[in-house]
């Protein structure tokens, strides 16, 4: 029997692989039409390479990050790879998840993505879903909600983030070459990020 963390990462991978064409089509509108293909290739490798028997969440997240770095190929490789590796530090040696650690891992992931991509909120990137998701998560948790309830609020905020990306122009990455023509399209990175959070919520 595989561990909970492996099963959760596998569920995320399956969700991404299932939506490969959808994510790639989104990226075709404003990017280089590779987000779904690249992420699916990366998570296929994650499903194959992460140790199914080691319950150490930090070790599994670190392996996920390293695998994404070497298999995704496009910008999502270093961005998601760094996010998972930073989150891994919070969970090093831990085999259970609580709200406090999950919030700290989201913070670490945000900091890692910002360091790597030099992006802020409002630039039509994955951060437009992730930062509001983290804020909603922390607010709920502080109000006494459970991890799952807080994640529910995070997913609502992440989806609102996707809608927000439709209203703004990209200033980072390939989409920034399009200027205002990127308005009206939702950001593929914000979309895959939201799928990730929803999968974790459904898994818990």
């Amino acid at each position: 029997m595989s561990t909970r963390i492996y099963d959760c990462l596998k569920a995320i991978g399956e969700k991404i692989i299932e939506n490969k064409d959808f994510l790639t089509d989104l990226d075709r509108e404003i990017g280089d039409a590779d987000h779904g293909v690249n992420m699916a290739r990366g998570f296929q490798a994650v499903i194959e390479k992460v140790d199914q028997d080691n319950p150490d969440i930090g070790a599994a997240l670190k392996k996920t990050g390293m695998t994404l770095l070497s298999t995704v190929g496009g910008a999502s490789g270093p961005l998601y790879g760094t996010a998972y590796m930073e989150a891994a530090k919070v969970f090093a040696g831990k085999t259970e998840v609580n709200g406090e650690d999950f919030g700290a891992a989201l913070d670490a992931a945000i900091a890692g993505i910002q360091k790597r991509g030099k992006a802020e909120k409002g630039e039509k990137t994955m951060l437009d879903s992730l930062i509001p998701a983290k804020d909603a998560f922390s607010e709920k948790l502080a109000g006494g909600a459970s991890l799952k309830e807080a994640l529910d609020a995070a997913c609502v905020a992440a989806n609102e983030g996707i809608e927000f990306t439709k209203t703004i122009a990209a200033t980072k990455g390939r989409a920034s070459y399009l200027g205002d023509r990127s308005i009206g399209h939702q950001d593929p990175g914000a979309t895959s990020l939201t799928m990730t959070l929803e999968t974790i919520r459904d898994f818990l």
Partner: protein
Amino acid sequence: MVGLVLVSHSVKITEGLKDLTAEIAPTHKGIISAGGMEDGAIGTDAIRISEAIRQANDGDGVVVLADIGSGVMSAETAIELLEEEDINVKFADAPLVEGTIAAAVSAMVGSDIEAVIKAAEDCRGAKKIL
């Protein structure tokens, strides 16, 4: 001698640039083409780049050059992965082709890593038609 690691989404770009550099800076040693993915596909791989940095290092340090987009992000990630190791590795914020040639010529004559980076970065904004 300061080593060089070349990063691009295309392995043909970095292989071609390595060949060109060998012509122009023939006595430079330690230039590694780290473009593309392991299987030759278009993309960049931070793990592959970090291995290239180890390979390019003879103790005098390594300068990494990249072309566009996430090649830069993967190069920076690769450098961070080596933080714990005793390798003096730095990214040169320079155009890949011009910067690599300048860096190789500088390294070939025995410059230290800072001088090699400066030679590469001095190519920024160089005019081609005066």
